[in-house]
């Protein structure tokens, strides 16, 4: 099982604050890791460091074979990041936005339709400006935009938050499907019970460091 993410004593600083303070973690291909921890524990920062958006100031970090000290940009094309925000162009129509995201990663425009159906958005909504959608629907469009890029490493921050029950079921299916097709998934979530259904492993962070690790499934 090749390692996708390998952190050793990683310290990262953002906005003059040590968001990660000596984090050790190793994630193998195909795992679905559920990140738990209170606010400020470092969940979001960990994902942004994996995505190369935050530089590391100490320790060693390796993502998808790239050493994050030297080259933070190259792995990004293989990584999908979904933060608290949805990264949507609110003026565009649903279909236009997802097609743009597809084209940006070299996928076919046709994939957009498939992705939108996969997240349960009926084609009636495809020609509606994103601005007019509900939070849950927007979250689904964001997930579809990520699905269409077929990333090797999925980083999702509180993805279940805005979704209704049906949406969460769909999301879990998508995550399992992605992991089985060779991708690796890391998602952060507050709710405790979620970890039962999908995650192959639960990791708890506190103070920018690893507290508990339920170990590989």
């Amino acid at each position, binding site marked *: 099982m090749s390692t996708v993410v390998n952190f050793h004593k990683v310290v990262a600083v953002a906005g003059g604050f040590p968001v990660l303070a000596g984090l050790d973690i190793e994630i193998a291909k195909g795992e679905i890791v559920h990140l738990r921890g209170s606010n400020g524990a470092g969940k979001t920062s960990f994902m942004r460091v994996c*995505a190369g*958006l*935050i*530089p590391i100031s100490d320790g060693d970090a390796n993502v998808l074979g790239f050493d994050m000290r030297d080259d*933070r*940009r190259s792995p*990004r*094309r293989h*990584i999908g*990041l979904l*933060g*608290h*925000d*949805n*990264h*949507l*162009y*609110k*003026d*565009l*129509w649903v279909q*236009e936005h997802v097609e*743009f*995201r597809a*084209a*940006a*990663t*070299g996928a076919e425009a046709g994939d957009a339709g498939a992705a939108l159906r996969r997240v349960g958005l009926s084609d009636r909504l495809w020609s509606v*400006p994103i601005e007019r959608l509900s939070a849950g629907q927007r979250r689904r469009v964001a997930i579809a935009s990520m699905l269409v*890029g077929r990333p090797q490493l999925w980083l999702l921050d509180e993805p279940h938050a805005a979704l209704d029950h049906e949406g969460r079921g769909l999301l879990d299916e998508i995550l399992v499907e992605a992991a089985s097709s060779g991708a690796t998934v890391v998602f952060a979530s507050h709710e405790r019970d979620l970890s039962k259904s999908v995650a192959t492993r639960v990791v708890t962070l506190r103070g920018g460091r690893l507290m508990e690790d339920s170990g590989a499934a």
Partner: protein
Amino acid sequence: MLREALLIARKDLRVEWRSKVTLGHVAPLALLILVVFAFAFDANARLLELGAGGLYWVAVLFGGTLLIQRAFDVETEDGNFDAFRMSAIGAPSLFLGKSLGVFFQVVLLELVLVPGVVLLYNVRIENWVLLLAAAVGGTLAFSVCGVLWGAMAAGLRVRATLLPLLLVPVLAPVLLAGSRAFETALGVRAEAGWTWTSLMFVIAAVHTAIGLGTFGFLLEEG
């Protein structure tokens, strides 16, 4: 590279098409500026005719700066800047794409301003070809510089005030050259408008080269 740039430009133009900010807000504002100039110069026809070339470019500069602000607000709202930086499209294509997007929107703006100047300041366009070339040169230089500095100020809390401060000194030569070239095209002056126009294309070329090289750096908010 070009395919990706066109992709970005098309997206920007579609965002504009859906939100109608340029046509709905900025173009009328630029027209309003032409009117306000007349108040400032006390509707002195001779003065307005003489200054038409220059006032035109001041209006473009003002409206254009708002468009640059808008172009990057679109990229930074709703966490889009992360997606912009995570995008598989390389920095040079992002730069070209955004510049193209801004270029067409400023052209849109000018399609409103040229008739505005002709009607409000009753000037006759003697040399259409020169006017067109100068307009394209100036807009190209404006878009390229604008996107370069727009990225510099993107996402910063103080960008609304910082962007004009960074942009205007760099665009001063474009404003200068544009005004002289337009004055020649409008027959108000006899100098070689073509040389001023070529200067604008040089400025555009220089900043495009810089942008292609440094845009990646500018995105690294870190």
